[in-house]
């Protein structure tokens, strides 16, 4: 209990946030957990202690003769999106941050370029996603270009309402979440360390691999946590960009909630939360963020 050693006045500062956290996050979370064991009918939830909500989620999941069950299929597809999105946002985000930190020397220009990265967030989510249709659609710009140059003879349908378009939208949206923490880590690297590596005869690649990347680890992990948690719980992007034909856990929870099947939705939410926490736990095992910060 480290904080007890602090002066009482410092402890007081944490009270407002703690209260908000307890009342609007911790208590609702506990309620969600409790309700996931309740029964329900069309119009009310009934206090009980049943496992039906959970057992239904994994129904047929251990029967390997049949097709993969809906739950496994949905999580598998979500994990794949998570991994691909994480991979691309990391690569792109890292190099954008690298450019901003090491090649842009004026702080004004760093701020200007940073603001450019936030452009995707200037419009509403829905408008942004609807705007993909004129670009990627059957009669969209990309298809027009491909057809007119003779690269293809028929419109490419996989450009929109597909796994491709989902990943594209995710990467487009969430790369910023990688750039910010990685950039932050890079700015804290003492330039003299890099000079020392250079003086000792390391080439650019060696400096990148042996000096910069290890020192950016906290930023990479924090960015990864942002991206992975957002993608795991997403249903709007997957819904709109996937033409609502590609499953997501979030959508299942959303549908259950709109039909007032709150205990079933709560059970799904608990499992989603547990899995997401597990992933974060594994990532924090790889690196101790608290120590690095």
């Amino acid at each position, binding site marked *: 209990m480290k904080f007890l050693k602090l002066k009482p006045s410092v402890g007081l500062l944490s009270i407002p946030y703690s209260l908000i956290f307890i009342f609007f996050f911790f208590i609702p979370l506990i309620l969600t957990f409790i309700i996931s064991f309740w029964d329900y009918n069309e119009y*009310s939830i009934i206090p009980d202690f049943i496992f039906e909500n959970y057992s239904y989620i994994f129904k047929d999941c251990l029967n390997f003769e049949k097709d993969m069950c809906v739950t496994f299929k949905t999580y598998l597809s979500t994990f794949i999106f998570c991994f691909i999105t994480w991979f691309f946002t990391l690569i792109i985000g890292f190099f954008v941050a690298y450019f901003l930190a090491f090649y842009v020397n004026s702080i004004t220009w760093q701020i200007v370029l940073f603001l450019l990265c936030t452009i995707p967030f200037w419009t509403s989510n829905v408008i942004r996603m609807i705007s993909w249709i004129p670009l990627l659609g059957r009669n969209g710009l990309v298809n027009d270009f491909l057809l007119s140059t003779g690269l293809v003879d028929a419109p490419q349908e996989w450009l929109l309402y597909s796994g491709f378009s989902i990943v594209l939208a995710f990467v487009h949206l969430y790369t910023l979440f990688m750039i910010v923490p990685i950039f932050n880590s890079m700015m804290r690297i003492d330039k003299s360390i890099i000079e020392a590596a250079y003086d000792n005869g390391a080439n650019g690649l060696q400096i990148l691999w042996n000096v910069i990347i290890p020192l950016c680890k906290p930023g990479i992990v924090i960015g990864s946590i942002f991206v992975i948690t957002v993608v795991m719980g997403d249903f709007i992007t997957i819904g709109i960009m996937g033409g609502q034909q590609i499953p997501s856990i979030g*959508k299942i929870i959303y549908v259950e909630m709109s039909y*007032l099947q709150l205990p079933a939705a709560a059970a799904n939410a608990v499992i989603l939360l547990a899995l997401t926490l597990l992933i974060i736990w594994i990532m924090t095992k790889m690196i101790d963020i608290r120590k690095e910060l």
Partner: protein
Amino acid sequence: MKKSLTRRNMLKTSTAAIGAVAGAGLLKGFPAIHAADAPVIRYLGTAVNMGDAVQKRLFDDTGIKVKFIVKTTDEVVKTIFTQPNSFDIVDSEYFSMPKLVPSGNLLGMDTKRIKEWDNVTSAFTKGEVAGKKIGDQGTAPKKVMYLKGAKSKEFASEPTQFVTLIPTVYNADTLGIRPDLIKRPISSWAELLNPEFKGKASILNIPSIGIMDAAMVVEAMGEYKYPDKGNMTKEEIDLTMKIFTEAKKAGQFRAFWSDFNESVNLMASGEVVIQSMWSPAITAVRTKGIPCVYQPLKEGYRAWAAGFGLPSTTKGRQADICYEFINWYLSGWVGAYLNRQGYYSAVIPTAKKYMEAYEWDYWMMGKPATADIMSPEGKKLASKGEVRDGGSYEARMGGVACWNATMDENKYMVRKWNEMIAS
């Protein structure tokens, strides 16, 4: 002992807890009608058919103001359960009644206080159009119209003084098509799964409505004849979802939609050429200058109906104002406004008084337009000489095959629907 804890009580308890900390002033939930002057009605509903013009006219005629609380169909139902004191009047659909009435959160509406009650269309009260019985599969309004008493939680099979909702608006829905891209006549629901439209079809991803469209398709394909599409058994749900899952796996659907605007975009962009659609979405595509037809089909229409309800706590002056609002709503001006959008008003004779003869002939009689037909916002919907898709009121409402429904196996249906989406 298992005690049913309704969401309402649940919410009361939790709000009390939060309220103690946050301060009651932050919470809404006080009736808006308390001042003696300028009454305001909090109107909960999808409000897809309501515009500023209605508010203005209402205020001019009665001095009542309306504050819209706009939510989607499913959210409206959820709000009635969880926050029954957050609104003064609700615009809900009849198919929600089997869920809502047992909760006791809505008041039985007194038909004696409705001036035009005797003029409410027989499609609601008797399930008849022009003296002929229309399809009543699903949650047809007449099945869930009457209550055994003002505070009753049970439906009455015979007409009584008290009703669940005062009817306002209804329509017959069908498939929307792009005639310029299909280039041949479409006459059956079965066309939705025709491989000819592979990758160019869509259906709505709202399970309780989507399942009805799906059932119309399955029946039209000759795969199965449902005893009651609106109340399927588990086996029937399995069969319906199996057919749609196979079609989905084969790539029949370009996308599913759940938001009105998505359906407009899919159709206008040409991504989809045949899909489930709602009448104002067709209008929205047409006003962009893109041809789009609300195609009448030989198997008939899927109908829906909505009306006004009051929370069970309504009384005194608050009730008076709400009844005054409802009476104004049914007195004709709004009816004409709804008819001009392609819906139907629950009280037809009063609406007629507010429509021009050529408008009436086009919208209600199915005759060719003798002048350009304008929307209430003044946008052109049809040119001189055009005939309304599906024709007259009697042809369209008389051709209803089923109604939006809440099934006994609703829980199972929603799960199966989710499985189809995931497949």
